[in-house]
């Protein structure tokens, strides 16, 4: 049950900080806090035998959020934090950041089939015909 509490706490704190202030600093610290709590949740899940999946998922979620924060800092574009992994990849492809997309693909062990399918659909949806040709 401590595991659930940790996750719920991450949600509560995140929400409180988000509504508190629109300024960049508090949002940053709030986001860092969520990552810390997710890591903590992962540790707590790992202490039981049955929650291997949840432990891995929470750790992966923390990793994703860290990457998203990095991407936002790099691109100066607040368009990543909170997206799902698939949407993060789509966003990378849409912004033409294929280097990062390739990194996300290896980091999160996304299958080839899945990756190419997603990339192709995103390019087609964006009507990026040149990108599709270079495929």
């Amino acid at each position, binding site marked *: 049950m401590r595991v659930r509490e940790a996750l719920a706490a991450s*949600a509560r704190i995140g929400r409180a900080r*988000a509504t508190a202030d629109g300024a960049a600093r508090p949002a940053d610290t*709030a986001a860092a806090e969520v990552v810390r709590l997710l890591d903590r949740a992962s540790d707590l899940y790992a202490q039981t035998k049955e929650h291997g999946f949840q432990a891995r*998922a929470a750790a992966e*979620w923390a990793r994703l959020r860290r990457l998203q924060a990095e991407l936002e800092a790099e691109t100066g574009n607040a368009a990543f934090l909170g997206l799902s*992994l698939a949407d993060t990849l789509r966003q990378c492809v849409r912004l033409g950041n294929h280097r990062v997309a390739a990194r996300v693909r290896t980091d999160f062990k996304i299958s080839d089939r899945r990756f190419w*399918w997603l990339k192709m659909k995103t390019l087609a949806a964006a009507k990026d015909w040149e990108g599709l040709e270079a495929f």
Partner: protein
Amino acid sequence: MSALPDYNEGPLSLGQLREEARRLLIELLDSRRGKKVLILDPRVSGFLGLLAEVSLLKEHGIEQLLHLSSEPLGDLGVRNVIYLVRASINNAQHIAQQIKETNRTRPGAGLEYAVYFLPRRTIACERIFEEEGVYGDIVAGEFPLGFIPFDYDLLSLEQGSAFRELVAEGDRSSLYGVARALTRLQALYGGAAVLKGKGTMAAAVRLLLVRMRQELGREAPVVGGGPIDEIILLDREVDAVTPMCTQLTYEGLVDETMQIKNGSVSIDNPSGARQKIALNSADKVFRDLRDLSFAAVGPQLGQRAKSIQSDYKTSKAAERSLSELKEFAAQLKALPNIQRHIGLAEAVNRAIAAPAFRTRVSVEQSLLDGHGLDASAESIEEMMCNEEDLFVVLRLMCLLSLTNGGVPKKYFDALRKEVLHSYGHEYMLLLSKLQDAGLLVKQEGGKGNYAALKRAFRLLVDDVDDKTPTDIAYVFSGYAPLSVRMVEAAVKGPGWGVGEDVLRLLPGPTFEVEQTTDDKGLPIEKPVQDRKLTGISKKRRVIVVVFIGGVTFAEIAALRFLESRPETNCTFVTATTKLINGTSLLESIVDDSITAANSVAVI
């Protein structure tokens, strides 16, 4: 207000039940004097329209209707504020917040607050009022609403959270509401001689029913003489497979594609405006079509339109008698109904024309058949890649789990990981809940009971004729819902009509008891001895089938089909905690922690 069904045409005159609910509501409103504002929980306002029209509320002093929020109240021009809400901690917090804020911003307003909880007040809610320091400002009461009639043969408590509480959270408080509503039903229509049930929750309701009868003592509903012969209690958990499948009847498909809410559906007109269509037996065209396989609906509508057309032509040719003309005029009156349903059926057709819909149904069929597991898992994965609706995907995953005694190890984590990757990691909490509920679990030794149940209850039927069906399996185009098969077997003879060994395959205890009185006239229950009560008799028996945790329109259609068969000498009334489909059932399990986590996701 749209037309109401004739509640009294069924085996129980349910109009009486509706009258009672209205009387309770009016008493509640009249308990505060003068003009007042009514603040409603959105989950209450939905069905309140089925019980009372706005003009009735106005007659009893309601000046304004508001939805519950925690924002302070502005100047409403009245002194009395009545809250009508479900008894939940969240609601109590909103109310406390609103009253505190209103007192702070408008200290001289002098408002009087009355809070009515549905179906009963709870200690938890009152504690919140105490802690927030508003207890003294509030008069708290109850609105002991029982079953709400949805049609002449359909009752619901509209408790959407019941399944989640019972199955995923181990909270059985909603069962009290079920037992109380059943006791009230029997007080109005006479007690049922026989009580049958299957499942843990059914057994708990049985215990509550006995206790309530004993508390009433000599006042307890008299058994025998009333119209109800038997009550069958079924846990949704006993048959979780059925709601995961796509309903293929007309009403079922309308619900699957457009969501029927409180007996009506909203569709976009060709002109672009939203149109609300009431779906109940008051609409004679819908009444004839609702339970048909969707495949049969188009031809039926075409035929009706054509027959009116040809009648119109012949009417010009020949002179007609006055009575013939009258008949023809009545037919013409049905024309707008026919047009409305052509529009609705077209909307369904558009929704099911998508290739994803075909994939979904074919995956379902092969999972129910019990082969093509690998291909099914692959299809599900592909659907996630294509960003199909999360709940459609989860329904198929649950179906895979339920029909195979769990998801095989090699797919379990892979599929769940794909859910997180495609829809967001916050859904890990939902996946955990589904696991707790036993809907999506890992296969551990053995393929489970489904194959044996499939044989014992003949769940799969080949060569179903959609247009002139001979078996209930038509409602899912070849799959007979287990729940209704159990009812079918149980009404044929004494007991459950199947062997002990078969009943043991299903979770929870099985029981069959007689509600009767001892020699002092006090209520007791005893094993059924008088076989005349359950056996085949000349009298057409009335059976109330109670689905604890929700029922789908397809199952209701199957029960209606069953009662239309000459071999079934019974009439059914369906009662439930909530009218559901697989999607709304799974959505009800998405709890506040996920909504909260979702809000984190957007910072």
